[in-house]
């Protein structure tokens, strides 16, 4: 063994014995984690620090320790991770095995992350997700700026395919909108990506009636993306000037909500003659949810009323002439 290699090995051993983050705490591991992941205990090597808001840094050689706060952007919530789309993964499936060494080297900190397309692009297995089209949309989007990538919105450690499996649409809408609000309602994060002035969502939407109801029942992207019929969620985020502002885009018989929020939900649980009935399962949109039976009945009653009035008038005129 060369002297330099021997020296490097000894140094590594010393470092790993003097700087220890903290011990694994297996009490935090829930049985549900093991049901979806075969690497739960291996992953704890990372979670013991990255799954906690604080970690203890111990220097054994000098017999000292310090409690450090984990940077929020480096935190991964175990519950969210083990229920996310990537729940079955080992941390080292995506991150270098060298991260097992602490402290992490500068080279590792510059590790280039995998992007969605690296695993999901041009692969028949994921063809129905249309990742290629999503990428094209993103490149045409206003979000296509420096240091902005898939992970800026979709945290791979917690991402859920909410809309595709939306049992609770309200929860899915909240999840989706929070993706936008993470930056658009937090100027510190927003300022990391752009030099633009702060956007105050409530003020910039002051033209929108019933703001709270709109924010809770539709996603930001309903108005802020261009309709794309082949992918579930449009990714071409439009500039503010091109966002939908016309009420009748949604509040009309041919509502755009059927091409966006309710696009792939063919299960219409409550028909009963309502137009765009799927919307009624979660909401009611004036103009979009007319009931054709009520419409027909109203025209019939209105017509009959006019007919009776017309006939009565005719008889009155006739009898008036007679008298």
């Amino acid at each position, binding site marked *: 063994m060369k002297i330099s290699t021997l020296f490097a090995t000894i140094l590594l051993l010393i470092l790993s014995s003097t700087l220890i983050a903290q011990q694994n705490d297996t009490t935090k591991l829930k049985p549900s984690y093991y049901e979806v992941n075969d690497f739960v205990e291996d992953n704890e090597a990372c979670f013991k620090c990255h799954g906690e808001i604080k970690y203890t840094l111990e220097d054994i050689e000098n017999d000292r320790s310090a409690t450090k706060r984990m940077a929020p952007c480096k935190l991964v919530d175990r519950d969210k991770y083990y229920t996310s789309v990537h729940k079955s993964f080992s941390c080292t499936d995506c991150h270098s095995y060298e991260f097992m060494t602490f402290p992490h080297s500068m080279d590792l900190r510059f590790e280039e992350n995998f992007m969605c397309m690296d695993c999901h692009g041009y692969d028949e297995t994921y063809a129905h997700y249309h990742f290629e089209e999503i990428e094209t949309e993103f490149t045409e989007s206003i979000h296509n700026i420096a240091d902005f990538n898939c992970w800026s919105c979709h945290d791979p450690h917690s991402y859920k395919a909410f809309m595709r499996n939306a049992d609770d649409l309200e929860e899915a809408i909240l999840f989706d909108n929070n993706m936008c609000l993470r930056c658009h309602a937090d100027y510190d994060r927003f300022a990391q990506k752009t030099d633009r002035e702060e956007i105050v969502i409530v003020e910039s939407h002051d033209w929108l*009636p*019933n703001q*709270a*109801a709109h924010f*809770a029942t539709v996603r930001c992207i309903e108005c802020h993306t261009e309709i794309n019929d082949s992918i579930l969620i449009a990714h071409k985020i439009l500039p503010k000037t091109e966002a939908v502002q*016309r*009420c*009748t*885009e949604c*509040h*009309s*018989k*041919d*509502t*755009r909500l059927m091409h966006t929020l309710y696009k792939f939900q063919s299960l219409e649980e*409550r028909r009963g003659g309502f137009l765009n009935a799927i919307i*009624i*399962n*979660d*909401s*009611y949109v*004036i*103009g979009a*949810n*007319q*009931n054709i039976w*009520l419409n027909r009945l*109203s025209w019939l*009653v*209105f017509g009959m*009323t*006019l007919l009776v*009035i017309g006939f*009565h*008038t005719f*008889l*009155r005129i*006739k*009898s008036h002439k007679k*008298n």
Partner: protein
Amino acid sequence: MATTKIYLYPVWIRLWHVINALAFLVLIITGIALHYATSGKGIISFELSVTLHNICAIILSINYGVFVLGNMFTGNGNYYRKWRKNLWPKLWKQFLFYAVGIFKGEPHPFPITKKQKFNPLQKVSYVFAMYFGMPLLIISGIALMFPEKISNSIFNISGLLFYDVLHLIVGFVLSIFLVIHLYTCTLGDKPGTLFKSMINGYHEEHE
């Protein structure tokens, strides 16, 4: 031909009535525009319809308050009381007059007097319109004006759906009431007699 004049409509009633009529007309027109909204350009834009509908709804609601208070504290409320007394025979008599008697030139079975402003059919329809229909319309309208405050589920359906369909049905029934009301107002001695009364306050009876 002698003409008898009875002062039946004091100024506050006439003012209330004209405000109510104008607000209700705008509400019907804008309500139809909202319900049948299209993505293209309609006669009235959706945004303008919402604004006008909201403004007129507030005016109508306040005006309704004036009507209720006015009826509580003036004699006008008496015209709406005891509407159930001997109801069906009276209704039938009035119905027969409208269906047959009116064409034969028969006299009105319930002539208008200072004590009896409405015939039985009018009385029942006004009581239902003003004391059942209007409160339902106003309550459901307020609910739709503040959709975020509505309960998510009422009778196992969406709160929004419940209030919207209720608002539509009551609004429609009251609109039909308005059409019939306008027509029956032509059934005075002359077609314009009753309209004139609502302007000058005097009911004219030609003998």
